[in-house]
């Protein structure tokens, strides 16, 4: 069975500090991977997607970057956090672009 793990579960960070969030998929090879952001009480906004190792496409610019260093790993990061980065970050995977998506448990980020 496939499992998707996100770390950390929650973070409280200062404005201007760096950030790294991680996502790991087990039990599925070469999945499509996605990062989403959700403001409190809001909808989900797709940030990045990756079809293969080393390739990441940006969907929206939020002063964030993403990388896929391994087939089963997706990293979201920034060197300088903004207040507007606060929210819920969700990683998801699918077999392909037009296939069903499955979400991880999410990371709640608070920027102070």
């Amino acid at each position, binding site marked *: 069975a496939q499992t998707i793990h996100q770390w950390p579960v929650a973070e409280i960070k200062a404005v201007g500090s760096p950030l790294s969030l991680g996502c790991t998929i087990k039990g599925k090879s070469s999945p499509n991977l996605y990062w989403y952001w959700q403001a409190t009480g809001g*909808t*989900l*906004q797709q940030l990045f997607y990756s079809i293969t190792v080393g390739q990441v496409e940006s*969907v929206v610019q939020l002063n964030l970057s993403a990388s896929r260093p391994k087939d089963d790993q997706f990293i979201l990061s920034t060197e300088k956090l903004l207040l507007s980065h606060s929210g819920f970050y969700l990683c998801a995977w699918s077999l392909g672009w*037009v296939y069903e998506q499955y*979400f991880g448990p999410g990371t*709640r980020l608070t920027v102070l």
Partner: protein
Amino acid sequence: GQQVQQSPASLVLQEGENAELQCNFSSTATQLQWFYQRPGGSLVSLLYNPSGTKHTGRLTSTTVTKERRSSLHISSSQITDSGTYFCAMAGNEKITFGAGTKLTIKP
């Protein structure tokens, strides 16, 4: 650009009543999926339905691709159905979520 509109924004029902949620999208969808989210929780996939009618348990989704709409029907609602329901579509370049329907089921 690619847009997804959900209605109603919120819905309050008595336990046992049926719920009907709507999703309209602005461009051809190659993928259409319904999700459920509890407050503070992650997203749970309910139904993947790019076209036609799909069922699972008390849930039925009908997607009419050429009319760019999808619906989610919840029969015999239960208090545990309370939460927010999202539909999401995949276009050519990105995946777009609707704003969600907040469903509250009262005893």
